[in-house]
């Protein structure tokens, strides 16, 4: 690159071009490598082809090759925050109904610790049969509770993993554990690891997006999608359900997009001059960041505007109005992955079912099930119909499950349980219409194919083409992984 091709920088004013031509050519030619992304962004398709293959992406989250061929290109994680009661939803245990009201045999309890163990509840250790009707569904004949009539129709597209196990039984640390592989704060979340590992295919949206619904945010809030010690461009960006989907996405009052564009162009030109003066490649990253910011300002509003969706699609999800809802977020998740976003996480609260007000296994559980049932099923069907399911991994589950024993506060409930709970997977290289793992006759412990959280993480990364033992980041003197020193591939889950 002996001279600067001024055509690469459309919109730049003549004095700047003059400046770039006149001074410090060596720096500029070096920095042009970093500038590739910006220049490319403003080029026509023809010019793009002409641009050098060697230009390195200016955006640090750009797509990168995986370790091995990927079965899944993207993830949608439906996080049921609070711990859904697998015994009332997925893991049918007639024996538990037979023994309803009887104390749990001591053999099950030896050496176990529970949440709220230091406060006394009557009937704490008495077994509680489910009040829900279960039936077999689909070709696979999987048992599903009456609370999920819509999800019952997709059992042939999903694999139920009934043998999940975790380590921590309080909500905030357990959610962190499910998201980061550690109960300690400060570790990167799965979405951050994935975008760190393979980048994102979206040029106009962040690679890792979080959506929330329900009365409150998940416990712990932003740490659940934090990038920990990984660079912050890998952190989850929460799209908000009301108002601007991304903070500060809207220009200040009275500043329209053309004026914003003129502002950004002037910033770019002055930054370029400084880049030439100082030779600091961070300036080219910053210029690229401003371009992405500008594109996000138009792409994010387009993303959340679902008015172009067909009536049939809206009906499939059960979206009736403009109100934020879980179903709407499911549709947004599909729109996000269609636009190249790598990792989408939906949080829904509150699945805590202790039996206290707002947390009963009666009306409260029915309500949260109604909130999510249709949207989850619709998402899988919609992805399938569009040919996206085969390389999109959908995950449904919470941070832990609930005990076979009942808990009586004002109404009936169950306590937190980490020894056995259910998560389901669909699409992206996972078996369809299968059940993995089995619990004992009371649903207390796993008797076959235990799927610990670390194993789930290893398997999810594997599907994305990443080897969990190789996806490492050096921090504080040692190499960290999503799976710490654990994690085994759940080969039976793979299609």
């Amino acid at each position: 690159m002996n001279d600067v091709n001024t055509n690469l920088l459309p919109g730049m004013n003549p004095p700047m071009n003059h400046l770039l031509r006149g001074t410090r050519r060596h720096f500029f030619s070096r920095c042009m490598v970093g500038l590739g992304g910006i220049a490319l962004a403003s080029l026509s398709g023809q010019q793009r082809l002409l641009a050098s293959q060697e230009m390195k992406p200016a955006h640090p989250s750009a797509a990168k090759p995986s370790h091995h061929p990927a079965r899944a290109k993207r993830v949608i994680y439906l996080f049921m925050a609070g711990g859904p009661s697998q015994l009332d939803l997925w893991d049918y245990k007639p024996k538990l109904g037979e023994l309803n009201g009887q104390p749990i045999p001591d053999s099950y309890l030896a050496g176990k610790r529970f949440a709220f163990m230091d406060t006394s509840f009557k009937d704490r250790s008495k077994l509680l049969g489910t009040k829900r009707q279960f039936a077999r569904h689909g070709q696979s004949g999987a048992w599903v509770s009456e609370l999920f009539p819509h999800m019952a129709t997709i059992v042939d597209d999903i694999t139920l993993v009934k043998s999940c196990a975790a380590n921590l039984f309080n909500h905030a640390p357990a959610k962190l554990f499910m998201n980061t592989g550690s109960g300690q704060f400060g570790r990167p979340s799965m979405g951050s690891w994935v975008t760190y590992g393979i980048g994102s295919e979206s040029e106009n949206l962040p690679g890792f997006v979080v959506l929330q619904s329900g009365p409150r945010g998940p416990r712990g809030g932003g740490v659940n999608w934090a990038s920990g010690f990984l660079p912050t461009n890998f952190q989850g960006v929460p799209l908000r359900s009301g108002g601007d989907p991304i903070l500060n996405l809207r220009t200040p009052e009275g500043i329209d997009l053309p004026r914003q564009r003129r502002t950004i162009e002037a910033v770019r030109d002055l930054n370029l001059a400084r880049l030439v003066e100082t030779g600091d490649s961070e300036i080219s990253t910053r210029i690229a960041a401003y371009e992405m910011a500008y594109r996000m300002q138009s792409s994010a509003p387009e993303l959340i505007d679902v008015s172009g969706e067909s009536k049939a699609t809206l009906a499939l999800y059960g979206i009736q109005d403009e109100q934020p809802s879980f179903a709407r977020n499911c549709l947004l998740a599909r729109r996000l992955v269609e636009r190249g976003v790598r990792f989408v996480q939906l949080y829904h609260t509150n699945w805590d079912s202790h039996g206290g007000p707002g947390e009963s296994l009666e009306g409260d559980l029915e309500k949260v099930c109604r909130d999510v049932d249709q949207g989850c099923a619709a998402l899988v069907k919609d992805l399938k119909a569009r040919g996206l399911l085969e390389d999109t991994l959908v995950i449904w589950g919470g941070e832990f499950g609930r005990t076979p024993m009942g808990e009586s506060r004002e109404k009936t409930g169950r306590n937190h349980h980490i020894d056995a709970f259910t998560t389901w997977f669909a699409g992206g290289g996972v078996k369809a219409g299968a059940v993995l793992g089995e619990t004992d006759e009371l649903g207390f412990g796993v008797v076959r194919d235990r799927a610990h959280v670390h194993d789930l993480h290893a398997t999810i990364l594997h599907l994305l083409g990443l080897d969990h033992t190789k996806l490492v980041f050096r921090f504080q003197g040692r190499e960290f992984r999503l799976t710490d020193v654990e994690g085994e591939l759940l080969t039976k889950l793979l299609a």
Partner: protein
Amino acid sequence: MVAKMTTRFFLYLTRWSLSLVAFGLTVTMGADSNKPANPAKHWAFIPPRRAPVPTVSMTAWPRNAIDRFVLARLEKEKIKPAPEADRVTLMRRLYLDLIGLPPTPSEVEAFLKESTPDSYERLVERLLESPHHGERWGRWWLDVARYADSNGYSIDAPRTIWRYRDWVVDALNRDLPFDEFVVSQLAGDLLPEATLEQKIATGFHRNTQINQEGGIDKEQFRIESVFDRLATTGSAFLGLTIGCAQCHDHKFDPITQKEYYRLFAFFNNADEPEIPIASADQISQAERIEAEGSAYIKKLPEKDPMVWGQMVAWEQSLTPAQRQALSQQVREAFDFAFEKRTDEQKQVVLTAYVEQAPANRVHQTALARIRRQRPKIETAMVMRELRQPRDTHLFVKGDFTRHGEKVTPGVPAVLHPLPPGDKLNRLDFARWLASAENPLLARVAVNRLWQQYFGKGIVETENDFGSQGARPSHPELLDWLAMELTSQGWSLKAMHRLIVNSAAYRQSSHARVDLETIDPNNRLLARQNRLRLDAEVVRDVGLAASGLLTQKLGGPPVFPPQPDGVMSLGQVKREWRTSPGADRYRRALYTFFFRATPHPALVVFDAPDSFSTCTRRMRSNTPLQALTLLNDGAFYEFARVLAARVLTESERSDAERFRYAFHLCVARSPTVQEVQRLNDLLHTELNELRLQPEAIRTAKAPEGADPVEFAAWTTVARVLLNLDETITRE
């Protein structure tokens, strides 16, 4: 299952042993084993010593000993240092580094006019004496202290601990010797005749999170906070990842699990109270009034036994969100049926009911009358030693439910010994840590100072000086600086002075083509580094440029504007009522920091999350930063006020105004090309905006200003506040 576990365990051990072998270590089995063969030989455990200051051939360059170490290394590689940065760059660099604020245009002008040879050094002295120095470097220390204004975990209720923050700022301003600084924070409460200030200093280790979730095992979370205190102590003062030894002997450094728990024992006896900060009279007055209020509430059921029933009905009517908003004590009492509650629990719930239920308006008025005279008493969170020490056991695999052998307080054998004694406590530990014999403390401290000034430490792994950490780039310089710190009576200001007066520091930060292959990461320091400003300074520069900055020091945290909806992202929605008046424009150091929902403009520029100690900040460069500077209401306000300032305070010519605006943001004058580019922009804006009544109306021009001109200058101001250079120390 069993077979699988065993295999895994075996593999684990094998991998472990292999890695030890790979590092040339021998493995011996048994207690306190698995140490490297001769850990005492690792450089960081050998006490620093002063190597002779090297001789160099380019004798005109060095200004002090630092430079001779740096230059000797450069000469070995046949590299010449970079030229000194220009005077304005140097001045802005000094301001941002020493006080975290940019120089004003008049300060720049005065400095450029000064022709005495020592004008730079005199500027350094002025800045070191500025009260803003403590604010700038206070934040440096608060990162380590994981300071925040809320309890963390899921409930994240506000806490009052800002007196500790003010203590840090003050201690750095008066240059409290670093050894005393350390001892006060770890064990100020145990010092003979401890002052209130020394007690407040122990807030350092009260900056741990507190879990207020229902149903938790409190002992578990007390122990979590002790684990955190150990990890923080290790990173902050020793540069060691001692947390690794929580579950097993440290794999790479000579710290056994037993030694970890002997350290743990020093921290295991603390009580964690809040103490009032008020005169004895005020305290007794407050107590008297409080007692009067409680007595009033206590009498209610005696007068009317129906009150209990009404209270229970009220409890049952609460929504989950309302319950969550009540205090921890009340929520715990709720876990028990009425008849199972203790008298104290009944009283706690009754108080909540009387104070909160709308039906009790009459009582609430009466209580307000009683409490009207109650003095407002500030509190501080401190450490206090328990009279009866707790036993400390080793926890098998770090699990607090699995007690191993009982241990007594002690320190790792690889480090200098404790003074003899059998009743050793936290103060003994603090004094041991801060003793001149400690091979690590001074090195770790000067390395973190260095890191602030050059972007990287001499040891790049600033929190790992162990065998897995990076080797120092300039070992003799590190030791020389460490010795200098102790011989200067642990004066941090002496170290600041030494570093910023060096020629190494004063170099230009421009990239050098000749170094691109030899030293791409600038480890040899043949130039300075351009560093993006810390999150707080990004805000402070905007405040200073626009002239909005409130210079007041200290006091309770404040609530500057933030986008709507931030607080709803936490589990419990916390209130954020924007501070009125001057408190709206305080330095970011004073922004209330909720751990679960921190101010987004801080987070986006990599302010630490305060969940655990942070010894080095990341410097990311993201689109969300661009969106913040472009669109955030606070930054837009800075731009509008900056535009108004430029229009009213400078001469009427546009050229003068560009110059003034440039000076306010980046301290220097614009180049001809830069003026031309801004001028083009200004004229485009004037032409475009004339046709946009809406833009003019919403611009809300100050009185007397032409609205179109004001709107156009607002665009110019936005451009300047968004420049990479504005948020960078060059």
